[in-house]
């Protein structure tokens, strides 16, 4: 072997047992769905993993009724201390079954095992641990002396972080005393269905968590159901707007976590090697299918060539391939549809005059794959600089002054996250103040912690998840009578 080739180091699939078909999990029981069952596939191989039930409006109604019963009879009467015990138990079981969850998530989503193993699963467990701690301390969270739960919460989550988004939604809802009807994304339902098993193992009272699988129609049934007190949605801005329209005039509450077009702003005094790492992590983590992905680099014009050279050299070392291989950095795109969108927008970028570059690495024959791609000479008016691509495609733009950097960073309909790279502390604080983004990372990117609120400005949605702010989305503020 003349060069250092890393031999395959695949994680074993044997830890996961995937049944041929799944039903809906309602009222603590597995029940048949009334709709047409649909397959869920491994996007890295296009192999069918299992068949999943489709929940109709009737099924959703059953789930909401089960949640209501659990709410009025059990969960809303239980002390915070006891609710916390269940959440702690769930968190511990998630840790115990971490390997199983990681492998299943990688199979169903296509993301690399090193991400599910080192990020998705540990962070999901951390959210349960964190919110378990809040369950008996809500009166001290600054949400009034007697914060009350909403009741039944309808939650709709995306396919990019199936388990983690579930944790972001379910953990605070349950900690605050709500019960839940949750719909996982139609391309990635398996993590949620394994979570049902974890709830059973934790002896969670029936109906506190209900899982309905299906696509848009199922989601619409949740949004439209009169028995739902609050909607929590993470996904595209288009769907978010539909939800906002549907619930307008009703007394449903909502939090929406939508798209983004984040900028990583790199000043000429930045710690350059770490900035490159941050940019690469910011856009190629999870194949760029991250709402807060740093899909634009705004590099100061006097260093842009150096930044681009370094980026290219770094991208050459990314390893694309079998997501179960522990050395894989870039996995599969989640679905054929998403791949088509990434392909289309990249073609538009080229057609509009931006310069396209990719690593040229070989792609596996089956499955949905897209090479890490870099666009230079991108202008603010190019579609690839405005629209969320939601894939491993990075656009490099330049700026001359801090003011111009802020103007360009803010000049999108979105406002979810941003990154600032400079060794100058005062500039970091000034930038954080100017950037219209829910999260501003300084000399780092894509850091998530349950204690830190996450959410957007403008078309990136409203409401926060995580931290004390995240609790506010799951309670009605109140004062003791």
């Amino acid at each position, binding site marked *: *072997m003349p060069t*250092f080739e890393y*031999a395959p180091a695949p994680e074993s699939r044997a830890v996961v047992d995937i049944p041929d078909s799944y039903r809906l999990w309602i009222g603590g029981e597995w029940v048949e769905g009334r709709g047409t069952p649909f397959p869920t596939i491994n996007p890295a191989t296009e192999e069918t993993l299992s068949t999943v039930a489709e929940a109709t409006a009737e099924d959703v109604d059953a789930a909401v009724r089960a949640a209501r019963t659990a709410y009025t009879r059990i969960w809303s009467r239980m002390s915070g201390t006891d609710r916390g015990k269940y959440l702690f138990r769930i968190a511990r079981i998630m840790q115990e079954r971490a390997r199983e969850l990681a492998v299943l998530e990688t199979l169903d989503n296509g993301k690399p095992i090193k991400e599910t193993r080192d990020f998705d699963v540990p962070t999901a467990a951390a959210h349960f641990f964190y919110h378990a701690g809040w369950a008996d301390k809500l009166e001290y969270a600054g949400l009034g002396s007697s914060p009350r739960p909403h009741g039944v919460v309808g939650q709709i989550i995306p396919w990019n972080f199936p388990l983690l988004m579930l944790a972001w939604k379910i953990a605070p809802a349950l900690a605050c005393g709500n019960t839940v009807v949750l719909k996982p994304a139609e391309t990635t339902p398996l993590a949620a269905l394994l979570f049902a098993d974890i709830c059973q193992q934790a002896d969670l009272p029936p109906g506190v968590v209900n899982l309905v699988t299906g696509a848009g129609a199922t989601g619409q049934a949740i949004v439209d159901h009169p028995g739902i007190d609050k909607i929590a949605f993470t996904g595209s801005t288009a769907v978010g707007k539909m939800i906002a329209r549907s619930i307008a005039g009703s007394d449903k509450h909502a939090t929406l976590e939508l798209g983004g077009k984040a900028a990583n702003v790199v000043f000429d005094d*930045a710690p350059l*090697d*770490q900035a490159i790492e941050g940019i690469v992590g910011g856009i190629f983590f999870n194949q760029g299918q991250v709402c807060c992905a740093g899909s634009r680099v705004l590099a100061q014009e006097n260093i842009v060539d150096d930044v681009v050279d370094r980026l290219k050299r770094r991208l050459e070392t990314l390893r694309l391939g079998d997501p179960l291989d522990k050395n894989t950095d870039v996995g599969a795109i989640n679905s054929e549809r998403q791949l088509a969108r990434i392909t289309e927008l990249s073609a538009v970028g080229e057609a509009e005059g931006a310069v396209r570059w990719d690593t040229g690495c070989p792609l596996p024959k089956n499955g949905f794959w897209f090479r890490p791609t870099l666009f230079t000479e991108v202008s603010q008016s190019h579609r690839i600089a405005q629209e969320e691509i939601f894939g491993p495609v990075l656009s490099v733009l330049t700026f001359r002054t801090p003011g111009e950097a802020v103007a360009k960073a803010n000049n999108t309909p979105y406002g979810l996250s941003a990154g600032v790279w400079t060794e100058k502390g005062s500039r970091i604080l000034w930038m954080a103040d100017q950037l219209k983004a829910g999260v501003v990372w300084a*000399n*780092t990117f894509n850091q998530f912690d349950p204690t830190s609120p996450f959410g957007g400005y403008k078309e990136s949605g409203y409401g926060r998840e995580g931290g004390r702010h995240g609790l506010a989305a799951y309670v009605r503020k109140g004062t003791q009578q």
Partner: protein
Amino acid sequence: MSTSTTTDSAARARDLLGVSGLTNRALAAWLHGLPGVDQVGCEARAAGLKTRSIKTDSKRWAIDLAISMIDLTTLEGADTPGKVRGLATRALVPDPSDPSTPSPAAVCVYGDMVAVAKETLGESGIGVAAVATAFPSGRASLEVKLADTREAVAAGADEIDMVIDRGAFLAGDYLTVYDQIVAVKDACTRADGSAARLKVIMETGELVTYDNVRRASWLSMLAGGDFIKTSTGKISPAATLPVTVVMLEAVRDWHALIGEMVGVKPAGGIRTSKDAISFLVAVHEIAGEDWLDNTWFRFGASSLLNDLILQRQRMSLGVYSGADYIADDAPSAY
């Protein structure tokens, strides 16, 4: 000869810095103009490299490469000719049970033991590296440091491992550090015009910050060091992965700027095969394939060889042997 080398390196340094005379102010402006290193990001990068999973054929290949990159080291007050002979013999026959085991690159000793090591190693191709310049503290006059170096070279040392004046570096007296490296480099030249390769020990454990490590790396390369080396092994922390990452970035960027390769040698604290392989992954992914060769990368280590051989035996036998199956000529005297 010696004057021309000094002049060449000074001219190149002035040229690189774009100044008419090398001064502390010019060196400070240049070194402080290098991009900073973010500690958190640098350590995260190193931790990421550590998660690479190197198995089967790759592991076998990496173990042999790592063995061939070792500077097998003994640097103790209690070193005797017997111990040095034993260590040199060990380098010749690293594993008596398997002659296919590669030899380390060099044996690293104090200057007064060079002749002993040389005698045993003969024309085997295994080098003798000598620590010099009032190792490990470097607290001596330049004359003493140069005499120390010349003696080791005259005794047959193929490589000289010098220490920089950390006190001068921390005080901002970069010119003194630079001048001393240039002078020692000059003293590495033999009568026939050939020269011992110079490794510059920065003692990163005393420099503390990654910014300092980056600056010291560039200063050492500017002064003509053939290798930049982390540590003496006498100060903790010694060779950490993040420090080595910063140094690998330095030699990579220096190569991009000048077109010349400089070697990297982490030394001290690397004891297991797993650690060594993480360093090789870092070399591969940061500096690149060209550095995966013992001309450009070394491990300064004493006990690492034992673990590499243990793992090598395990990979060929399928089972672990044990310490008593690894011939060891340099066990601790205490």
